[in-house]
């Protein structure tokens, strides 16, 4: 008998399904295509399924962490729009404020890149 927490657990998982569709496109459809444009777009479609699978696997924990980190920046912005307003008003022109902001933004960029292109950060940070 299943526990409550997995009463609606699905098998295969949504990540499994996305990966299956990705593999199908990349390994079976792409080799059969001759139109270069369609071939390229199908490779992109396979790639975005991988992005979606990685993002789902990540869960929403990091998003909460970044919201907390943003609220600890000068001016305690509660949203990206509020942070942009503070930037526009010069609140991060100082050395210390700029350093804190860049660290927060870069950590968030790297989280986005983990889903989009996991090799990018590894490559550029060497």
């Amino acid at each position: 008998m299943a526990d409550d927490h997995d009463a609606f657990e699905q098998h295969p998982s949504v990540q499994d399904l996305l990966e299956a569709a990705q593999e199908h496109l990349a390994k079976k459809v792409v080799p059969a295509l001759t139109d270069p444009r369609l071939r390229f777009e199908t490779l992109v479609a396979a790639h975005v399924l991988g992005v979606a699978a990685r993002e789902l696997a990540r869960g929403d924990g990091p998003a909460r962490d970044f919201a907390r980190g943003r609220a600890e920046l000068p001016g305690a912005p509660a949203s990206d729009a509020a942070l942009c307003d503070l930037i526009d008003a010069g609140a991060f022109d100082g050395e210390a404020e700029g350093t804190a902001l860049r660290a927060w933004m870069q950590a968030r960029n790297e989280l986005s890149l983990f889903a989009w292109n996991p090799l990018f950060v590894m490559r550029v940070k060497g």
Partner: protein
Amino acid sequence: MTDALPASLRAELEAAVTSREGAAAAITAARRLAGGASMESWSIDVSVGGRDEALVLRRDMGANMSAWALDRGTEFALLHAAVDAGVRAPRPRWRSADGAERAWFLMERLPGESVGRKIVKDPAIVAAGPRIVEEFGAALASVHAVPLRTLPALPGPSEERTPAGEALSQTRDAMRSLGLRNPVWSYALRWLSARVPPWDGRMVLVHGDFRVGNLLVDATGLRGVLDWEFAHLGDPHEDLAWITLRDWRFERDAKAVGGLGDLDAYLHGYASAGGGAVDRDALTWWELLGNLRWAVTCHTQAERHLGGSDRSVELASLGRKAAEMEWELVDRIEKLEHAHHGR
């Protein structure tokens, strides 16, 4: 989508060439080329009065990437001026009639490869990389030397703005029209706005998209400069910097110029071919602005999909790709700040 030339397009092209040449034109071969998101390209062989011509067709796909993008008629006239001035670029041959629903032109087909990922993996091209980037520099010098009086009307900075001021203003407008509030964009725009490099007043023809991907290359060197739709009048540093963006290195990160060679060889080529003085700080500034513009453009492209005007998985995916340029912006600014504060 198909790789066969649509019969209606075939008839339109044959009729246009026949009428301009006064001799029967027949298309003998046509092959779709992998192209960009706003233009379709075909390799086309035409027999005109018994003479064979190897051509490329560039044709609108119905949506422009930018309000500053040239129409095909202007691009055709610009190519004429550039080739006549000695720029290594395909000679334009025929174009669609004014008012055509989807404008096109035919130009000479030059040899070489333009797909960036193939170029940086070709051993013979890679071996010739240092010389090829010198040729890139020399080619830009020739673009910047095209006499302005020979050009069709091109976009350029408004009277009260410098090229850098115009570029910042356009970037700000593009950010606003997207309606996205992105802290990296806001921070980079503010940082760049506070550090605009001095401008020496040199106003030149700027290609506007001079990078690997728009350059035909083989092991013998640069064969032709393609894709002139973003040409405008401006500061030569804008053109010189664009090819140095990390994204145009196609994962060959250590080779700053198109993943093929280094900056010194490239600038040596520019200077040797008569290009003017280059300010390295200005180059860095335009490179950073280039990253910001490319990030914003990626989202503009994604919006074409999201807004329904042009549904495409490629366009949708570009919105996520912007994170690569945003990472680069923060990393570069961090390093420049670090150096500035002597830490």
